């Protein structure tokens, strides 16, 4: 019922854009609040629809997937959560998908954050992963299968110091358990004992700093999940091979869920983003058509050719 209603309203919205075009060409542009209403409805209504659009898997996501499937069970993965709630709609679904995959394939997660909110986002991802029936089949113990080392101030200097020893920056985990007493961290001294680093980054400090220090200096393998805005900045590192793969924004998250065969939030959100983009593109077209028509009218007020 809601699905049908949403489709009807979205169709009406699409049709009404012709009237918006007519008004704009006529020199009577619609008010800002009308544009806001279009955007709001275009984002909200698809969330009620139970449709998953077909999504081609890009090479950036495929490369990351191919790298992580090669990690044998028991591999130690350093997972850096460098984002906060505003970026969570894009980054949290990919983090959840990654954590689920890690637990299902016996990868050992060492979680940390260069952003104060990062470890809290990690806790939320862990809780969501534990609700998955396939993850819940096997008991996962804190300290053995994963550890949350928490936040450390110092931005890229934290990564730099971790090269000398993780214990220097994280003498205890978030539960105040000493580093040496945590089973998962046994024999983990620095980056040379880590099989893979996965960074979920929304800005500074984030993926760029992990590439510059974690990859260039300490020769680690790094995969990244970033916001769509930040993805443009880290693409050079992808083509140079400094990143093994990249999940860029909501589409990256949805593709990652698809390639891992996980039905997560990004697969639902991508439809909302699709309609949001469609609305913005429609307004770009309307604005420009009006711009050229009105420009021609001003040049030629008599209507002569």
């Amino acid at each position, binding site marked *: 019922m809601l699905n049908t209603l949403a489709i009807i309203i979205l169709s009406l919205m699409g049709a009404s854009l012709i009237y918006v075009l007519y008004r704009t060409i006529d020199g009577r542009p619609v008010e800002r609040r009308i544009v806001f209403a279009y955007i709001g409805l275009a984002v909200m209504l698809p969330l009620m629809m139970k449709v998953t659009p077909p999504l081609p898997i890009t*090479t950036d996501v495929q490369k990351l997937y191919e790298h992580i499937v090669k990690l044998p069970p028991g591999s130690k993965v350093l997972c850096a959560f460098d984002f906060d*709630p505003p970026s969570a709609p894009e980054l949290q679904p990919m983090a959840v998908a990654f954590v689920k995959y890690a637990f299902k394939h016996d990868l050992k997660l060492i979680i940390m954050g260069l952003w104060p909110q990062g*470890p809290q986002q990690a*806790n*939320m991802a862990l809780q969501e992963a534990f609700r998955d029936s396939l993850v819940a089949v096997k008991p996962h113990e804190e300290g053995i299968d994963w550890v949350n080392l928490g936040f450390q*101030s110092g931005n890229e200097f934290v990564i730099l110091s971790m090269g000398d020893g993780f214990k*220097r920056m994280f003498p205890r985990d978030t539960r105040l358990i000493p580093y040496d007493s945590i089973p998962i961290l046994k024999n983990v001294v620095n980056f040379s004992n880590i099989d893979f680093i996965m960074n979920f980054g929304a800005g500074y400090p984030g993926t760029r700093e992990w590439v510059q220090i974690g990859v260039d*200096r300490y020769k680690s393998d790094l995969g990244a999940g970033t916001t*769509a805005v930040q993805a443009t900045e880290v693409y050079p590192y992808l083509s140079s091979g400094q990143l093994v793969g990249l999940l860029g924004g909501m589409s990256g998250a949805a593709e990652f869920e698809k390639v891992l065969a996980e039905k997560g939030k990004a697969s639902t959100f991508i439809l909302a983003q699709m309609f949001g983009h469609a609305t913005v593109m429609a307004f770009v077209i309307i*604005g420009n058509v009006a711009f050229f028509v009105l420009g021609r009218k001003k040049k030629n007020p008599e209507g002569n050719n």
Partner: protein
Amino acid sequence: MRREVPVLITSIAGLVFAISYFIPHTPFGRAESIFGDWVSIVQAFAIWLGVLNLLKVSLEKIFRKSEGWPYSYLIIASLFGTLIVGFYSGFSGINATPQYTYSDTGTGFDWVYQNIYTALTSTMFSMLAFFVGSASYRAFRARNIQATLLLISGFLVMGGRVPLLDRISSIFTETPIFSNLANWIMNYPNSAGQRAILIGIALGIMSSSLRVILGIERSHVGGGN
């Protein structure tokens, strides 16, 4: 001395970081580690300075009855409210069996984080979508060649990064043309532009770092003349 000592510390630290990149052995490697720890400690103190500054600015607003002064009460109440809830959750967790931390699921701090902080910050950020929509209607115009190129590439990336234009083109072909095109734009023109920016930034940082290390640039120690 108030200016010379900070300038000297900056110069030594800058030189150590620069040299240790090429010679990561004793004494430079060790010195770099020590300075790295200093950064973490100084930044941790900066968080406290931030809290104190927020208090100072908010209290000044209240006493001076500046514009929007009642909101400053809200800021102070939120600051102390979150602090109290966080400390209470933390201390309760230390004494509980099994132990839990202040940020664990189900604690008061976690409730504040998920139900207030997350909701407020997400709301602020999501408003961008509305502004982008409004700007696309009123300002994003193909006024000249540069703006037209930006508009076309933006249009293709927006439509290609989501399965929108590919859905339309699927009537004619199975190949995801627009998705491939968006990826090409991101991988080649975008990467080239970003690299140029990165190289420019790196050169700028190098020159300004040299000025700081050599003591020519002293604005970071403040004080004017």
